[in-house]
């Protein structure tokens, strides 16, 4: 009797340990899904489809990396979708006015930085609740977008800009979409920043050791300010990539994307409850969502069911976090 109980306990422990390695779980699911879809749908593994998925996943992933850092610190940034649209519209309007591409891209990023900085200042310096603040800036940014465009999409963008979203570069005998390269560069830079520098160290400590940081003279308000500004920057980068891909900056672009982005980040394990967080987890989470959606369309699953599947996935991730947290408590 005792041995059976203890064996069951040990099994449970092993199961929790597996579940708590979020990158592992998500990578496993991704692999599983790729295998199933690949065998059932030959088109899934075609170069065209893989390029498509990689391309459309890249801007969600970029924004999710920024969002992940915010979630990690116990905050939330609802303004990412609007910021994506704002960055695209600002850049597109400047490009229409004949501004050089580099300047327009810089201005788009600056718009994202500004939204993020406002979020960060209100949350970090004034101590306002992030949900309300970013809800506000979400509307403000969207309002600015409508105001700037008068509701009309901005079109006719030069190829030099569109190449950022539509272009491919030869790479190891194949082709790699430019947005995927941009994603790689941004993720690498973020990873260096978050894993090597004091800034990253403090951010990772923030959710669970705020008093110690405070006592050590670390400027916590400044940290939060940075985190939201970073999220704004990444969202702007994602928005520019998306705008370049579509070749049009629509004022209604990226409406509701904050849900997808937050979902990707949470699937990747970016939450206060989950301890082992990494950028790779967020990338895998974004990838999983995209492949799932792509697979459902390819398999011809009725559209009504697609949203539900994504939602169920998200709930499962949160449930796993909860179970692992409780399980490790039981184990200790």
């Amino acid at each position, binding site marked *: 009797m005792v041995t059976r109980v203890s064996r069951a306990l040990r099994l449970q422990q092993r199961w929790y340990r597996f579940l708590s390695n979020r990158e592992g779980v998500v990578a496993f699911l991704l692999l599983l899904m790729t295998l199933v879809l690949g065998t059932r749908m030959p088109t899934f593994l075609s170069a065209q489809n893989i390029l498509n998925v990689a391309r459309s996943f890249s801007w969600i992933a970029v924004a999710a990396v920024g969002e992940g850092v915010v979630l990690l610190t116990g905050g939330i940034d609802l303004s990412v979708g609007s910021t994506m649209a704002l960055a695209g519209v600002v850049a597109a309007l400047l490009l229409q006015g004949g501004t050089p591409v580099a300047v327009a891209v810089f201005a788009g990023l600056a718009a994202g930085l500004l939204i993020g900085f406002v979020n960060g200042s209100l949350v970090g310096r004034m101590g306002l609740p992030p949900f309300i603040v970013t809800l506000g800036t979400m509307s403000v940014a969207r309002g600015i977008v409508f105001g700037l465009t008068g509701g009309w999409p901005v079109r006719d963008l030069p190829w030099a800009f569109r190449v950022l979203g539509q272009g491919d570069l030869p790479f190891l005998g194949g082709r790699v979409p430019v947005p995927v390269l941009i994603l790689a560069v941004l993720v690498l830079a973020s990873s260096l920043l978050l894993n090597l*520098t*004091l800034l990253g160290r403090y951010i990772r400590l923030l959710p669970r050791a705020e008093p110690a940081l405070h006592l050590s003279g670390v400027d916590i308000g400044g940290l939060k300010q940075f985190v939201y500004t970073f999220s704004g920057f990444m969202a702007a980068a994602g928005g520019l990539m998306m705008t370049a891909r579509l070749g049009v900056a629509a004022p209604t672009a990226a409406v509701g994307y904050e849900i997808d982005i937050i979902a990707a980040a949470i699937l990747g394990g970016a939450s206060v409850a989950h*301890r082992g967080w990494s950028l790779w987890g967020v990338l895998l989470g974004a990838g999983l969502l995209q492949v799932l959606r792509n697979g459902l369309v390819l398999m011809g699953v009725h559209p009504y069911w697609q949203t539900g599947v994504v939602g169920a996935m998200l709930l499962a991730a949160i449930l796993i976090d909860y179970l692992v947290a409780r399980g490790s408590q039981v184990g200790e």
Partner: protein
Amino acid sequence: MMLELEHIRKSFGKLPVLDDVSFSLGPGEVVGIAGKNGAGKTMLLSVIAGLEPPDEGHIRVDRVPLSWPFCARALGIEFIPQSPVLADDLDVTGNIFLGQEIGWPARPRWLRVPNRRRMDELAEQALATLEAHIPSLRERVAYLSAEQRQLVAIARVLIRPARLILVDDPTALLSTPYQRKLLHLIEQWRDRGTAVLFASNDLDHLFAVTDRILVLRDGRIVMDVSTDETTREEVVAAIVGMRDRGEVTPIIWAVDSYYRAREEAEKLQHQQRLLEKNLAAQALLREQLLEQLSLQIAALDKANRALQEAQRRLLTEREQERKHLARELHDQVIQDLLSINYQLEDLAEAREVPESVKADLARVREDIRGLVTEVRRICGDLRPPTIDSLGLGAAIRSYAREWQERTGIHVRVDIEDALGRLPEPIELSLFRIVQEGLNNVWKHAQATEVELRVYHPSPRMIAITLADNGQGLPEDFDLAAASRAGHYGLLGISERVALLGGRLSLKNRPGGGLLLHVEVPHPRPLREGI
């Protein structure tokens, strides 16, 4: 003045936590803060550490006013909190250097990549200074014991020179050797010119290292006094809030039971510490103990203040009288006797004196010399001749030698080398205690051997133990009864101890004989030979 606080006020709703707190602090000054739990000690330190903004008032560091929240570390202020505030996910080195990481580039600081190896070396040094035993610098602090975590928190202060260190009673989580170590560190900081604010509930600690003691009660400073000019009783009174300080001075036999109670309390407290290092439970216990003590003190002291005062005056006057008498005898009677002796000698030299008279004269002169010796001994009893010039140690040694010759009881004397010079009334009283103690042994104990020890059990506390191998105290002994029977020896000792604010204990030794133990507080001694 390095740090100045002016009219600091802070309250939670209507409840005042700090109420008009003002004081200042110079470099190298060690100021103790005493007070019950909830008196505002921690809040005061948090305000100075820049963590909590007060509702009113200013703080100035080097005359520059500060506004909250400020970064205390940038001003050279370090803070050791009551229980360690650490980042559980970081290892030991990471915690010691949190906020102070060494690395490249120096600026901007946020982009700095920490240099682990260099930090490990320095962390190792800091922990070695503390003699802390920590399994590995790579260990996550979440897995360390409470004491180890507290040591890590203390080590954080050691890696960088500070100008002011705020110590918020971290000793609750530390065992005795590390408590000593911390006190020693505080003394080192003082010698280096670092100011220290030391909040503690442990009077021994406060009296050991501080120059000044502030007592907080209900958020107010009710006492700000130099440590040398106060006593534990005054401080306890201020902590618990007796209305009239005079009432508190304890009286003889009542005091004896008070000290017994306190000793028991401290023992309990110590055991409590060892048993569980739970801060909250301990705080509650302390609270209750202090509450009980205050009730006892109030009940005990009310009655006998006048008697106490009279006693003190009497003793002081008696000592004065004796000094006067000794000088009189020495300067007047002995000189007269000697001059009579010389006159008799002159007389005996004269030719016309017959031989028989000469023999008588010689006998008379013999008697006179005996008389002089006797008077000198009385003088010595009245006023030990060596105590003014050579100090307490020498006086006791010489008296013990003389007493051994006189009584034939063997005395083993063990006096700590560096006793230092204490104020005259204390030295004199201690001498009298030894004197009366030895006489008590001679009169009642029927002992053949006595062991006498004088030493410092803790800084600013001197102790005398007198152990004999005689018959010890009867089982139903009590001081009050002894005094009614006219035996004043032990009573005199207890009087003197009480007046010095010390404590007395009498115990029968397991192998037979009496152990008399006296502990008396004193101001920081002047070091001999410095």
